[in-house]
């Protein structure tokens, strides 16, 4: 204990002791002066009698020292000095480690933000999403949809709520774009209509005012809204008196009753305004369009909840076979809902950076081995002088620790810069929860642990092997021959590096090929020179369907008249935005199928000219036109997939269909080519197109084909819209190119990151190979010199070095091939139309590695034969 206290009070005690010693010498000198000596001589004599104060101070200090800590500090100091003396080695090692640790830190913080951090709701692990699951026959009809997450019918939701008992609260949600006016600039906002229980499910109280009550969440209930914190700040300037104020939401007066606290939002359902959903029980609504969120009762397991839900689903299927025969349910935790789809990608990336770190550690280990070989004499001298093995190993490890620390510091900097670039390159929802992404204490802690592990990885083996060296041998042989064992270790390290980078390169190659396949897929439409924007039609002003249909026609007429516009139309959902509604239908010329067995298809509502704007070819029949009037039976266009499936050997044009949706009748007037709608990866589903003029929706996306760069028309088109209705809220003004690019932002990021990591791995492995060969050549300078002096052929010498390099590469590649089979299987779920054993990728990777290997071997081979025999023999 005394010692520990002393360790911290060291400075004070040193000065005290120095003072004591000075006093001692002075006192002695004064005594000598009193005896008659002159002052100068007296001081001199007193000092001589005392001895060397510095030495004595040092000795006094050592009395207190805790050996281990003092040794560590001394080792670190020694290590720093040794590293400063070889700046090139230090720079290469630190840079290598920085790449490895930086990549790990970046991916870890991504994983931490997206997957590890708890969601900002109390008891978030009890929050679940509830989905319907269609029977197999419907899944087969729409292979592109995720069968485990079908949106929910409102009547089924009401029955779930009434017939289950596993949940404390259950809420429906329906995203609804809204036009906000009556306060500042009119603007489009992301609205979410929810049940009153929504706020109970998430367990968050409002910041101001209140949330709505069950009494308000009834058909024709009062129009009340709750605002998000950010909307309140931006649109209302954070005014606390907004509670009770009236605003216009989609032209209808609404009362603001509450403001939610900052950060209250579902990661996969962004909202700025919440309004009561006010579901009509038994309202004859047969669509499935709701999301449902619920909170498990404490102690209820997921399996119990699932059984409870399926039980309810069976009752519902008997109650309403037409809508729900054979439908089941899916209970999904909110965490799986949020990150389930990105988890495999993040884990693959984490695996990749782990490999990069291993390769980096291997490289630095190799550098240390070579450096250690060069220092064997120094170490031998120290051992001969009595330094303990442990102390030497300790000192070598301290050097490694310094390298790791410097590498970590630089790596964290790299990670920070890299993460900013990643987040900036992504559209908001491509990766959930990235707003919580930053380099913080957790991430730094991770890097520090990583740094320690890395130190042991690359530092331990050299430290042990050199401290074990026999000083006698080392002193005698000097630099000339390092042990065969050390050379084998280095070769093994390089082969491992090659193998690991092969795994990475194959993974990256597969991802890149998959990405190219995905973006190069036949989409059925062109994206160039198309301007898009989203509009929501104020429900109050255009509650009349006919008026709404005419309004949209007016808007289109004005836009089409603009100079620079070639064609314009609308679609209620743009391609590549991930949403397509579906419904069932029956052929009028066939007997009515049993209830619940009607076939299903995707439904799209577009204006006339849509196919022309998108440059989607027509295969038969005609486009919508002015004769397809509101109120008449619907004109229908079907896609090729629909025609093939439901009219395999017939011409569908002229046939009549009954649509379950809105119970409408329609006649097929045309057949369009297939287009990809939800996602580039999803093959076209059978689709029925309806005419916006006949079935007007409450919202639409304008698509405008321009003769000039599309964004230059953005202002003109918006003005044309506002000329018809100055209060029309417009959002998401962007080009179709950007819409498509955003839809593949995540796969692009994944393949890019994997590519970067694989590139780093390749460079590191090649540098490692080069290092080993170059070092071996240097070691053999004398041997080569003798052989050349004896007339050996320089070409043959060169080939020898080359062969040695290639042997390392080829053996490493063979290992990599064996290793790659395992991990690449995990990438399979992320691949689009590329097999994990894609021969082309493997061949390309092998070729790249071979070429890199030849380059890395060529330079040392050249150097070997550039040796001047005379010089080389004198070299020692």
């Amino acid at each position, binding site marked *: 204990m*005394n*010692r520990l206290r*002393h360790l911290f009070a060291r400075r004070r005690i040193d000065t*005290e*002791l120095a*003072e*004591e*010693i000075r*006093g*001692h010498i*002075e*006192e*002695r000198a*004064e005594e000598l002066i009193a005896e008659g000596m002159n002052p100068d001589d007296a001081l001199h004599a007193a000092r*001589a*009698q*005392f*001895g*060397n*104060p510095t030495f*004595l*101070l040092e*000795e*006094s200090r*050592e*009395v*207190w020292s805790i050996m281990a800590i003092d040794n560590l500090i001394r080792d670190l100091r020694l290590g720093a000095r040794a590293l400063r003396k070889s700046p090139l080695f230090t720079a290469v090692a630190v840079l290598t480690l920085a790449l490895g640790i930086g990549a790990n830190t970046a991916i870890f913080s991504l994983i931490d933000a997206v997957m590890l951090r708890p969601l900002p709701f109390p008891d978030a692990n009890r929050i679940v999403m509830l989905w319907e699951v269609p029977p197999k026959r419907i899944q087969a009809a729409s292979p592109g949809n995720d069968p485990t997450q079908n949106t929910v019918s409102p009547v089924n939701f009401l029955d779930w709520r009434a017939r289950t008992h596993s949940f404390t609260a259950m809420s429906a949600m329906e995203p609804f774009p809204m036009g906000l006016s009556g306060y500042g600039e009119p603007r489009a906002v992301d609205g979410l209509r929810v049940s009153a229980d929504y706020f109970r499910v998430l367990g968050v109280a409002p910041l101001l005012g209140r949330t709505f009550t069950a009494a308000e969440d009834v058909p024709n209930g009062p129009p009340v809204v709750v605002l998000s914190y950010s909307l309140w700040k931006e649109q209302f300037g954070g005014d606390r008196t907004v509670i009770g104020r009236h605003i216009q939401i989609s032209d209808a007066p609404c009362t603001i009753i509450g403001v939610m606290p900052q950060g209250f939002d579902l990661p996969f359902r962004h909202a700025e305004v919440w309004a009561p959903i006010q579901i009509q029980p038994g309202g004859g609504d047969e669509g499935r369009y709701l999301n449902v969120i619920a909170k498990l009762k404490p102690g209820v397991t997921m399996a119990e909840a699932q059984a409870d839900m399926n039980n309810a689903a069976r009752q519902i299927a008997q109650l309403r076979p037409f809508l729900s025969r054979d439908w089941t349910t899916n209970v999904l935790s909110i965490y799986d809902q949020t990150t389930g789809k990105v988890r495999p990608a993040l884990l693959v990336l984490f695996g990749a950076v782990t490999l990069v770190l291993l390769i980096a550690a291997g490289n630095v280990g190799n550098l240390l081995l070579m450096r250690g070989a060069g220092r064997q004499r120094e170490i031998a001298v120290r051992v001969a002088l009595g330094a303990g093995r442990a102390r030497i190993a300790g000192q070598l490890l301290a050097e490694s620790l310094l390298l790791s620390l410097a590498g970590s510091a630089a790596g964290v900097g790299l990670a920070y810069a890299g993460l900013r670039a990643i987040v900036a390159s992504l559209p908001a929802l491509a990766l959930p929860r990235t707003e919580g992404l930053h380099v913080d204490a957790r991430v730094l802690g991770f890097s520090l642990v990583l740094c320690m592990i890395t130190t042991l990885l690359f530092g331990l083996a050299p430290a042990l092997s050199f401290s074990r060296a026999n000083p006698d041998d080392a002193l005698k042989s000097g630099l000339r021959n390092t042990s065969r064992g050390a050379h084998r270790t280095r070769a093994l390290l390089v082969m491992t590096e090659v193998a690991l980078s092969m795994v990475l390169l194959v993974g990256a190659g597969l991802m890149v090929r998959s990405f190219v396949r995905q973006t190069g897929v036949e989409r059925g439409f062109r994206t160039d020179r198309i301007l898009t924007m989203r509009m929501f039609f104020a429900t109050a002003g255009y509650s009349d369907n006919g008026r709404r249909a005419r309004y949209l026609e007016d808007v289109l007429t004005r836009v089409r008249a603009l100079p620079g516009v070639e064609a314009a139309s609308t679609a209620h959902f743009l391609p590549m935005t991930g949403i397509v509604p579906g419904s069932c239908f029956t052929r009028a010329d066939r007997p009515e199928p049993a209830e619940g067995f009607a076939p299903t298809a995707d439904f799209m509502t577009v204006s006339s000219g849509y196919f022309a704007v998108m440059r989607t070819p027509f295969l038969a029949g005609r486009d919508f036109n002015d004769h397809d009037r509101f109120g008449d039976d619907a004109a229908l266009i079907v896609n090729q997939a629909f025609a093939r499936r439901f009219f395999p050997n017939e011409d569908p044009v002229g046939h009549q269909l009954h649509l379950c949706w809105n119970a409408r009748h329609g006649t097929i007037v045309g057949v369009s080519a297939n287009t990809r709608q939800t996602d580039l990866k999803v093959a076209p589903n059978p689709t029925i197109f309806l005419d916006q003029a006949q079935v007007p929706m409450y919202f639409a996306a304008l698509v405008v084909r321009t003769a000039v760069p599309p964004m230059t028309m953005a202002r003109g088109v918006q003005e044309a819209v506002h000329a018809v209705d100055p209060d029309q809220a417009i959002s998401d003004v962007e080009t179709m190119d950007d819409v498509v690019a955003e839809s593949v932002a995540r796969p692009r990021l994944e393949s890019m990151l994997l590519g970067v990591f694989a590139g780093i791995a390749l460079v590191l492995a090649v540098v490692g190979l080069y290092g080993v060969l170059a070092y071996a050549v240097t070691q053999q300078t004398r041997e080569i010199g003798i052989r050349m002096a004896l007339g050996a052929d320089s070409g043959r010498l060169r080939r020898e070095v080359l062969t040695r390099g290639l042997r390392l590469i080829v053996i490493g590649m063979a290992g990599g091939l064996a290793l790659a089979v395992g991990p690449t299987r995990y990438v399979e779920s992320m691949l689009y139309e590329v097999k994990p054993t894609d021969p082309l990728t493997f061949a390309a990777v092998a070729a790249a590695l071979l070429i890199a290997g030849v380059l890395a071997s060529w330079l040392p081979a050249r150097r070997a034969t550039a040796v001047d025999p005379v010089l080389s023999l004198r070299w020692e």
Partner: protein
Amino acid sequence: MDNTRRELFPGALEMMVLQTLRRGPLHGYAIAQQIRQTSDDLLTIEEGTLYPALQRLLREGWVEAEWGISSTNRKVRNYRVTPAGRKQLQRELSSFERMLAGVTRVLRPNES
């Protein structure tokens, strides 16, 4: 350097310091003086070595130190032997005497 300096066996200096302090607290210089005088200058130590020895004694808790003013009006650190130090001195003295007896017997083999 001091050629007449006698090598002491390890721990001897500490024993002498403890013995000197038994009569009362002293500061470093005074301890050195005392040792020189009592040994009649036979035992000349390099005075500075006193200080590491004092630190060792402090570390073991055998002496305590306290800053004060000396008779010559100088700020000095006074050392005082602790009860544990006294006990240690007893132990050391008896083992020293046993050792001395042994050494004496070896150096004068004729008497045995």
